[in-house]
Structure formats: structure tokens, C-alpha cells
């Protein structure tokens, strides 16, 4: 039995199993090849493949093929999850230098790094001396800093750290490739850091979903050499479940491959895929939901409702969205940037067919919640006030049917006077309240 070529638990480290992202890779390498050796900031939602991309960039064969001579370019990958609340700039620098020492082939630099590591104190000037020596020897250093928000959100790293780092980057052959869930400037722990010019030396590289061609390449290359062939219907089903999200595509394909290996009939394989994929996806959907702003949650909910009424075809236009949430447009674009929405014809659709039903399942109250609705109302006078007037009227029937955790979200949504009637009508249809 052939081993399953699809994996989705850990980042991809084998460059032969890294697919797509050709444009992003060329942008990053292109900036490193130019005269000023420029830095880039990779931005993308969790599981979109940032770590895999950084691993790919750091691979010796890959960068050698890109013209970044491995003898002259030291690529140092650092997982910044290790940065805890107690860690400060000096400790981070010491850690970076240890890793640089391992990657740097030049004995002179290695010796300097060792010497610096043994000093009692380490400041920007010491680092300046080190990187001046790097320059003099015709070398280049690239730090690939994964999850850089661990630094930007850490109050121990004040403006001085960023000033010093920026100065080193500007004046020496030092470049950073950072990865973060949001743009760095959105993830700063203070206004002082946010206003630092540090961030404006980066080019922003957004990682979004795969293109259809990337998906096809991933499947064909992965199945190459195995006896398994996915039918077009199966591929369509996998794409419907996973969108073009690389992590979820790997998960769906992995399950599908297993179903083939188990010798299941095609109909059984479809059911197997749907069930197993949902079980795999839900924890991540919870994470995405919890990390969404309130307006993003409203748009996700509205999208779930619109897609349900639009069956069998998923998707909705911006105009339809604005019909139930007038302020929805910027947020749907933000969700597309995060990979939770996909462009669809002239509008959008939720990236996965699992997401909409999951959202609706979450917001509907359980029977026990419905029974204690009046207790909740007594504890939430503000909500009572909001649904008392004409604007809140349509909510009176709806709120009891909404789960306790989501009632405030629905009330906020209903505060849009232009769309409250339409939104209530949509909800009533789904909740079985429509007359």
C-alpha cells in the first residue's frame, strides 16, 4: 500500500512537496537580489502556509537555484514562538547569533559571533560592528522570523529595538523575512512602536488561497507514482469542502486518498470525505471565528444565511450582502484577504461549504438556552432597550432562538437601521419562524 502523499499537520519542509506561491517566492527573492538587499513581510491567516513558505525560502537548493549563492548568503530561520513574556531584545539577539553561527560558513564571522555571545552585554553598536564585518567580507545575512507578532506584541521590545534593527538593515547586508497573521503595524503593542519607521522598509507579501492551477499541480504531483486517481467529481467535492485553502486541500486530499486505500466505493468515499473533513476542519473554524472582529462575524453569518437561501449554488453578490448589512463591503474584503472568503463570479462565497452550516449551527439556541431566555433578558437591560423600539421589533421573535453567546452579535447587527428588516427576514427563514 502506497504511503499517503498528502499531509496537513506540520509545515512542509521538503521543497518537492511545496506547491504554488511562485509569484510570492519571486517577489521575495527579487528583493534580496537587488542592490539594496531588501526585506519582506509575509502576511497570512493561520494555516495558510507561511511557515512552509519560509522553510522553502531557507532551503539551500531553492535559494541556490534563485541565484543566492549559498556561500555568500546565510539564511537563518527562527521560530519566534519561543519568545515569551520574559524575553527581551538582548536575549533574542543572542538566540539569533547562535543560529547565525550555525548557518554561517565564514570562519571569521563565526568567530566574531562566538565572541559576541560570550560578552556580558550586547548592544546595537556591537551588532553594528558584526554586520560591518559581514559587509566587508561580501556576505549577506537573512533572518527568516516566523510569527514575528510574538515580538511586536511583546512590551519588552520598545522603540529602541526597532530603531536599532532598522539601522542595521538599512546600513548593512542584513535583511528580514518576517511572517505574521496580520500586517505588522496592526500587531504592535503600543502607539510608540506603531509610529516607528521600522515597518516601512518592508514590502508586504499577502498569502492568499491557491489558484486553481496550484491546486491541480498539487494533486497531480502528489499522486504521481501512486496507484490512486481522484475522479473529477471527487476533486470538485474536495474543492467545495476546502476551497483553495492549501491546508484544507491537503486535509481533504489526505482523507480522500485514505478512502481510496481502504477500497471504499465512490459513494462511500464521498460520505467518508465529508464526515472526516468536517471533523478535521471544525477546530480551525472555531479558531478563525474567535479571531474575527465583530463586523467580520456579522458578515460571516450573513454569508452563511445568504448561501443557505441561495442553494444549490453557494455565493452572493456584494449588493445582496449590503441588503442585509449595509456596512458589509469592507469587511467581506478583509475576510477575502484572510482567506475565509473567495471571489465568486461577481461576488463572494465562503471558502468552504462546511463553514456556513457550521456558523448557523452555532448561532441557533439549544432548547435549554431558549427556556431561560427571559432570565437572560432580565440580565441584559441594554438589549431589552434596543429591541423595545420599532427598530428592534423584528428581533423579539428571533432573539430567543439565538444562542446566548450570539445574541449580542445579532443585536449589534440589527443596529443597522437600513437593513434590520431584511436581516430579520433572513434569520426567520433559517430559524423556521417565517410565516
Amino acid at each position: 500500500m502506497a504511503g499517503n502523499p498528502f499531509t496537513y499537520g506540520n509545515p512542509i519542509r521538503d521543497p518537492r512537496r511545496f506547491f504554488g506561491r511562485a509569484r510570492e517566492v519571486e517577489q521575495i527573492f527579487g528583493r534580496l537580489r537587488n542592490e539594496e538587499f531588501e526585506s519582506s513581510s509575509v502576511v497570512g491567516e493561520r494555516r495558510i502556509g507561511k511557515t512552509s513558505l519560509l522553510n522553502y525560502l531557507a532551503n539551500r537548493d531553492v535559494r541556490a537555484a534563485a541565484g543566492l549563492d549559498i556561500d555568500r548568503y546565510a539564511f537563518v530561520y527562527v521560530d519566534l514562538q519561543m519568545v515569551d513574556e520574559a524575553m527581551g531584545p538582548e536575549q533574542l539577539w543572542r538566540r539569533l547569533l547562535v543560529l547565525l553561527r550555525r548557518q554561517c560558513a565564514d570562519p571569521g564571522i563565526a568567530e566574531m559571533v562566538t565572541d559576541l555571545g560570550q560578552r556580558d552585554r550586547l548592544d546595537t553598536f556591537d551588532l553594528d560592528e558584526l554586520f560591518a564585518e559581514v559587509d566587508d567580507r561580501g556576505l549577506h545575512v537573512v533572518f527568516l522570523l516566523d510569527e514575528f507578532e510574538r515580538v511586536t506584541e511583546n512590551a519588552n521590545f520598545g522603540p529602541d529595538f526597532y530603531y536599532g534593527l532598522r539601522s542595521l538593515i538599512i546600513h548593512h547586508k542584513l535583511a528580514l523575512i518576517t511572517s505574521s497573521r496580520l500586517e505588522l503595524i496592526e500587531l504592535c503593542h503600543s502607539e510608540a512602536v506603531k509610529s516607528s519607521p521600522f515597518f516601512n522598509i518592508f514590502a508586504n507579501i499577502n498569502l492568499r488561497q491557491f489558484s486553481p492551477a496550484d491546486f491541480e499541480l498539487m494533486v497531480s504531483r502528489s499522486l504521481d507514482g501512486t496507484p490512486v486517481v481522484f475522479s473529477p467529481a471527487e476533486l470538485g467535492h474536495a474543492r467545495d469542502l476546502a476551497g483553495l485553502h492549501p491546508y484544507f486541500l491537503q486535509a481533504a486530499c489526505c482523507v480522500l486518498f485514505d478512502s481510496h486505500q481502504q477500497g471504499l466505493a465512490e459513494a462511500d468515499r464521498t460520505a467518508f470525505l465529508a464526515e472526516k473533513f468536517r471533523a478535521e476542519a471544525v477546530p480551525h473554524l472555531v479558531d478563525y471565528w474567535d479571531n474575527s472582529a465583530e463586523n467580520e462575524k456579522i458578515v460571516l453569518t450573513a454569508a452563511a444565511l445568504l448561501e443557505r437561501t441561495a442553494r444549490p449554488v453557494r455565493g452572493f453578490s456584494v449588493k445582496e450582502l449590503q441588503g442585509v448589512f449595509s456596512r458589509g463591503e469592507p469587511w467581506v474584503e478583509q475576510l477575502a484577504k484572510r482567506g475565509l472568503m473567495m471571489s465568486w463570479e461577481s461576488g463572494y462565497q465562503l471558502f468552504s461549504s462546511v463553514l456556513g452550516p457550521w456558523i448557523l449551527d452555532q448561532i441557533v439556541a439549544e432548547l435549554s438556552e431558549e427556556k431561560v431566555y427571559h432570565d437572560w433578558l432580565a440580565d441584559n437591560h441594554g438589549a431589552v432597550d434596543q429591541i423595545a423600539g420599532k427598530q428592534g421589533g423584528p428581533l423579539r421573535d428571533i432573539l430567543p432562538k439565538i444562542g446566548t453567546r450570539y445574541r449580542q452579535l445579532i443585536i449589534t447587527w440589527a443596529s443597522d437601521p437600513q437593513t434590520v428588516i431584511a436581516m430579520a427576514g433572513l434569520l426567520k427563514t433559517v430559524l423556521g419562524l417565517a410565516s
Partner: protein
Amino acid sequence: MDSSQPVNPYIAGSPVTGTEMFFGRQDVFSFVKRNLIGQHRDTPVVLYGQRRTGKTSVLYQLQRNLDPRYRCVFIDLHGLNLNGTGNLLLGMASAISRGLRRDHRLTVEVPDRAVFLADPQSVFETSFLDAVWDALGEDRLVLMLDEVVRLDEEVKAGRLDHGIFEYLRHLMQHHPRLSFIFSLGSGLEELRKDYAYLFSVALYHRISFLEPGAARELITQPVAGHYQVAPAAVQKILAITSGHPYYTQLVCHCLFDRWTGAPKPVMEAADVDAVLAEAIELGSANLTYVWEDSLPEEQVLMAGMASAMPGRNKPVTFRRVQNAWREAGVSPPAAELASALRSLTAREILTGSRACAFTVDLQRRWLDKHRRLDWVKEELPRTVEQWPRTARATRRVGYLALAAAVLLVAGYLTAAGVARIFPFPAPGRGPTPQLLNLLPGDLRLNEQECQVTAPPGQWVMPGMVQALRCSDPGLTGGTVYAFQSDSSAHFQAGWRNFNTWWGFPATGAGKVCPPSGTARGIEVSSTNSFLPSDDNQAIECGPLRPGGGGTVPAFAFSYPLDFIFVVAEGGPGSSFATLVDWLNQPAQPAQVAAASGVAAPAPLATLTQLLPHDVTDPATQCSAHPPPFAAPGLVQGLACNDPGLPGGGVTAYQLNSFAAYQAAWAAFNTWWGFMSADGGTACPPDKSGLGTAPWTSSSFPTRVGQVLECQYAGAGTAQAEPAYAWTYPTENAFIVAQGGPDSTFGTLSNWWMRDMSSRSTLTVTAVSPSTGPAAGGTTVTITGTGLAHATRVSFGGAAARIVSDSDTRITATAPPGSGTVDVTVTTAGGTSEVVFADLYTYS
């Protein structure tokens, strides 16, 4: 991925340290060279400008451009430990030592760290600098200090002693072979005016956007071996970036990437369009930074502007921005928006005067995508309601104050007696441009008739930037004073104090100037489309007692948006009439000024140029019209059909002198039976049925007596119809518009606002084709706004033949020429500003 792929040469983020990708700035190099070797050789040089305009790059290039006897050492204060004077000086010493060693092959050892820190100031100056002078021989040391605002930040944070400024001053005074070049990341306009006098001795040069020629080189030369950038594509990039070095590099970077993906010999304007979304994404950090570094009211203004100009970076008026917000249910305070307008213009984020646009179109596109008005409305609810000053406001002022302190040090360095270049006026120097521009009569062209004077003794002027005292031979015995304050609050206080001293507001004051039937008058202007309603300009008039003696006639003009007011006093024994004559005289440079090349005054507009916009073809719509009132000196009288006034019409009159105009206007009013004292102060009129209101035109200077009158023409008869009459004192003209039967003041007012008050701003937005042969003869279409009735089209100063014109389009024949020139259009309202979009290249 292919390692043989050509390397993208464009640098989108880092300073340009190499030479190949650096273009322009020869003016900076000349300036610095001139001042390092000339009579100002002991004067520190300050290069200032907004972030990302390339100051650090300029410093790098300067090192290569100076005489080798000037040993440059670059010190980035971001890279130094500024925690204490000892660390700072040790860092500077180390930087100097390393710079001399690496770039100049000179060895100067830094004293032992412990020894140094034990007495840093003494060790730096004696042990270290003495060793530097020994190593340099006869050469000089030029310290290039980048990011000097950090000194201010560290002093403010308490980590660096304020005495560092004194010490630096001491170094500069006592080491004649030491020169300083500072780089300051802000605009001087943003600095608090309290500090203005501190900047009176350094030499300043602004680092702004690239000149068009340099920007074109940046766009075309680095890729010349790969592809051509079509002229339209060049034009497009320039229109989008205005030559901002970072954004130009960014767009070109993306264009190169596009070419790499699908090589072809010429990249067209459509290719530029295709990469803009990517450019915005790559440059997101900088575009976001502009937003994050802005105060709430600045954010509100930017979002409102982007909303008011959907789809293209077309200048919009202040009022349209307000309307955009009002449609969203919010009424931002006009004063806050006006303040934001000033600061964003100073930061070069916005550009324009009467109507504004984004300097870099990418910023508007970014706003359109990421900070739409309704989104901002949600983000800033408390700002919109309360306009609180955030910590960021404090921070900006703080860092500018610190920068000011650094510059104070620079100022101290200059020995007395050295000729100086002033970014701000100082006592004893000439008028500020803002003051000069607002001087009445012909003083604007005769600067030598004014002197900077001491603050007034009769009333308190807090935050005064400058006071001017001017005398003009035409104002026999009279005097003009002008006062500029540093803030809106200080202006308001000074204006209030002046009025208290003068006795305003006065009981019984009339509503017109010169006073008519009353001793005093006050006119308040509120019709300028770009002025916030609470920033009304005022004209006051009345007797004034200058100092002990008798009274003289006087006018006072307030300009709240400029924090300026002007007081014009007639001479002893003079009348309001003679003062008004002087105030309204056409601007005439004095003989000396004319001889020195000061521009001659613009000719008066012709009467047809003053007609309402919907009189599009005066030749067919108008006929000669002898006035039914006495009008000696009449140049022209016209009666015109106006499609906006069915059944009604327009009559217009122009006289040959200001005096003739005044007489004719008075005769018209008598003939018209207009009794201003019986009416209200607004048009359309209140229930009294007639009104008098001041008005301003966006195309002509506002003058005393510029007035709009309204009443029913033929009042008391069965055919009474609404009518407006308004004056152009600077053009010696007035116009009367009468509605048709059954029309109302409402419809007449709407017509007037549309066709008179909202006269288009004169702008050139495109020139097509943008290239042509040196021999000229090319038929060129110039598009823009406010182009109707153009009197001249200039190609780099050479007049072109105008074939046809309309409000938005002119067809002209290019004259012979060479190189790349600006195409400008002149109408009665002035000459279009020079913009990138108006460039025309002779091939």
C-alpha cells in the same frame, strides 16, 4: 524560478545607497557644496522633509559628491545607544572611527570604554577629536547626522541630558574644521511657531519629491536595456506618484515584475494600471503608516476626500468633503477639518489650494480600499463626536519640539554676522510669503515698502509670528499693518484684542464697507466655497485713532485660515473714498521692483470672461447694450440671453477705471431703486424682499465693495421679477441677472450658485499628445477644469495658438521648442499651477 532572470533594479523600501538607482537632487548637492565651502562654511546645514522622500539616500550620495578633502562620516542616530551623554558620545566616536577607517583609510582609535564613560565630554573632545584632527591633516570632518529627532525623543524621555545641546554647540563653536549636516524627518511648517526664531541661523534645504526630469529618468533609464516605457505610461506613473521617490520606485518595481512575467518591448499605460493593486499591497506598510501617523481629524478629512472623489484623484472643494460626511449623518467641525487640511498639505499628503487632491494617488486608492468613509465613521465614533486630541497629537508636537531644540543647537553654531537663510522670518527680515500675499493695494508687489516691526503695544498679540508695517507713496501719510499668528486660537485672541482696542463690535455699525450712513461697518464673508463657515473672513471699517492725534479712516481685514489680519489706515485728513481707491487699485510694482523682474500685474478680465458659465457663446448670445443709467467711461455694455434664466436675461457693464465703475454702480443702484438700508443681509432676500451680501469669487481677488444685491426688479409693478446684481471691483465691472416671469428667488439663487459661485478651479489634468516635434505645429488637446475663456496657453513660456476652448478642453497648436516643458493655461482667474500632468516633450 530562474536565477538567470533579470534582477529588478527598483528599490521599494530601503534608502538608495548605491549610485545607479539614484536620480536628481543636483540642487541639494549644489546647495551643500556651496555652503560648505562658501562664506557660510561654519553654518550647519539642515536637510528636512517628510518621511520617505529620500533624505537618507541624499546623505549617502552627498558623501560621493563632495570634495574629498571633506571627510564625511554618516551617523544614524537610530543605530546609537542614546541612553546617556556618555553612550551617545561613545557611539559617535566609534562611528567616526569606523567611518574614517572604512571610507577614508584613516586610523583613529576610540579611547577605552571605561575611560571614556568616566568623563565622556572631556575625553571625546580632547583625546578623541584631537586624534581625529591629527589624522585628517588639513582636511575637514563633515558629520552627517541622520534621524536627529531621536535626540529630542531621548531628552524628553529623560534618558539623555538636555545639556547635550549645549555641548554640541560648544563643539561646533570651537572646532572650525568640523561641519554638521542634519537630516530632519519632518516639514518645517509643522514645527511650532514658538520655535520659529530658533531657526534663524542655520541653512536649510527641503528634500521633497523628484523633479519631473529626474523622475522620468528613474522610470525609464534603469530598464532601458530591457524595455521602453511608453510616454503615456511615464505620464501615468508621474500622475499617480507626483514624483515621490519611494512610490515611483514602488510602481516601477511592480511594472518590472509584470514585464518579467511577460516580456515585451514596450510597457504601456495599461500595464501601469494593471500593477497598481499590487503596488498598493506591497507598499501597504507605508500607506498604512501615513494613516496611522495622522490625527483623527486628518483621518476624517482624508476619508471624506477619497469619498468625495470616487474613481479618480480629482481636486475637490472643502464643502464637498463636508457634504460627503453629512450624507453619512456626520457634521465634522469645519475648524478641525481646516486645521487638518493645513497639516496634511504641509506634510505633502494633500495638494492644492481652493480644491485639493491627494499628492500621491496611491494613497487615495488605498483609502478607497481600506478606509472608506463609512468604515472610518465606525472606527472613530468618539472622534467624530468629541474630537479628542489623542496621544499621537502630543507625540507629534513633542517630537517636533525636540527637533526644534536640535536645530537650536545648529543655530547657536553660527557666528554672528554670517548671512543667513531663513526658513521662518526673524526680526529684521522680510515678510513671510503668507503675509506678503495678503497685503492690500500694490504692496504685494512692492515688498520693499514693508518692514518687520515690533509687536503692537496697544493690544496683546499672543503667538505672533510676524508684524509688518508698510508705507506706500500712494497712501499719503497712511500706514498698513499686518499681523500673523501661530495658531487659530492665537489669531482669534489677537483679532479680538485688536477689536476691543478699536471699539468693535460697535453699536449701530452698518453691514457694508466703506460705511454707508453709519460711522462703522462690518462685512462678513461666507460665500467662498472652500472656507469653513466658522472661518468667515471679515472686513471692518471705521475711524481709527492711530496714536494721540485725530482719527483717520481705516479698514481691517481678517484671514482666519491664515491666522492673519491686516489694518489699513488712511493718512490724516483723508477720506474713506481715497482709502478705498488705494485699496482697489490694480497691483503695480514700483519702478525698482519692475526693473528687478517682478511680474507685471495681470490685465483686467474682459467682460465676456466675467459672464455666467451658461453664456457659452457671447458672440451669439449677447449684443451691445447701452446702459439705462449714467455710465461715463463705459468700455462695454452687454445684454445676453441665458438658457438658465428662461424669459429673463443678463446685462453686464465694464468701465475704464475704478472711479468710473464706482460712479456707474452708484447710478445703477439709483436707477434700480435699490435701498440697501431697508433690506436684509442675505441673498436670496428675507421677507423685506431685498438684500445685500458680500460675496467672493474663486477667480478674482476679493476687494472692498464686492457685493451681491438682490431685489425684485420692477418692484411695485405687476411684472416684478427676482434679480441679482453683483460687482467685480478689481475688474471695474458689474453684472445684473433677472429671472423670467413666474420665476422665484429660489430658482435664481440656484442658478447663481451653479453658474457663478461655483466657477471651476483652473487646473490642467492632461495634455494629449504629450510629445511632438521640436518645430511645433502639433495640435494638442489640453484637458482640465476652468479653462474657458483662456487668454494664453504657454508651452514652457512660449505662447501657443489657441484653436478652441471650453471649460474642460482647449485645443492649441504647439509652438516650436525643445526638451520637456510645462503647458499652462491663463484665464482671467490666473494661471494653472504647474503639475506633472501638464508636461509636454519636444522630440
